[in-house]
């Protein structure tokens, strides 16, 4: 096991550095998919009308895309730390969402409902590592854009 190396080309750390509201948007996106999941689960064993669930999923996905774009436009950010944390968190949440998907399939969820739930899980599983990576990297010494990412 190696230890974490310090980022190259560091910018002096500044915890008050202005950042886009990535964490807040991540939480909003997660809240939308969780609401969609609750809405669908509340109708079981009948099929919930898909309209509201699809609307919530699309809104969550749009927020996720906005977040990715905001992140990509950051010029000074600890990208190494972000990639490290996001990568490991993604691995962990792949296991968690894999278990949830297993439960859905095991319980004979099929068709459009399974597709919707799977996309909700995907949005959820991308949001959490993104949030964790950002929350850690924002307090780390930044690299200037161009050196990484």
């Amino acid at each position: 096991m190696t230890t974490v190396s310090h980022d190259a080309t560091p910018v002096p750390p500044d915890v008050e550095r202005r950042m886009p509201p990535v964490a807040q948007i991540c939480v909003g996106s997660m809240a939308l998919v969780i609401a969609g999941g609750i809405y669908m689960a509340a109708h079981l064993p009948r099929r919930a009308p898909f309209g509201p669930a699809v609307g919530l999923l699309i809104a969550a996905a749009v927020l996720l895309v906005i977040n990715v774009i905001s992140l990509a436009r950051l010029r000074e950010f600890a990208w190494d730390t972000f990639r490290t944390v996001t990568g490991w968190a993604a691995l962990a949440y792949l296991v968690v969402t894999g278990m949830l998907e297993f439960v859905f399939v095991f319980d004979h969820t099929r068709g459009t409902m399974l597709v919707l739930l799977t996309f909700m899980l995907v949005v959820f599983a991308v949001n959490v590592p993104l949030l964790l990576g950002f929350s850690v990297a924002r307090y780390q010494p930044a690299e200037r854009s161009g050196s990484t990412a």
Partner: protein
Amino acid sequence: MADVTTVPVAGAGAESLASEHAVGPPSAEPPSFRIVPLAGLPIVAAVLVALVIAIASNRLWPLEFFHVVGGGLWTGIDLFLGFVIGPILGRLSIPARMEFSMRFMPKMLLIMPTLVTMTLAAGWQLARHLGNLSTAYPNHGWVVASFIVVGVMAIIALGLLEPANLAVLFELRKPQPNGELIGKLMRRFVYTAGITGAMQIATFVIMTKLAS
């Protein structure tokens, strides 16, 4: 991917504050600590494998075991953290808080997600097994209420609590950790644990109602 399991940490608690914000040892070799305690991973893996077996078997006792044990521990830890450890931690010096965090937070990083996964996955399957998920179930409204409470708790835990936990651990690895930032993030961690703990009381009310 770089390895995040072992990081050097400044000797929190051993030295006096270098300044109000930057805390760290003037010269000592920083000790190492693991952000993810590797020794705990086989235990987590064993619990998850047992959970999958319990769900696949779809038998009442293993599902109840995982749901009740997981839920009890999750609730107990949340309440203890929010209402007992939290106030104590708030009165400790910043170096003492940092030393506590260095030893405590890595364990929470493994324990809490495992307990949450165990409780929710087994709970869902248990409800399905007992027919509680059906809209025909007389207490269906209570079941939906439990979904909402758990959903809010999940948002608080994943959106506020877990990021604060990780950010503290990474701050501690710096040669000069920012004590004020650690204090701020630890307060967020402890208060959100308290809020989810209080929400767990709502879960107690709902679950005992469903089981009655």
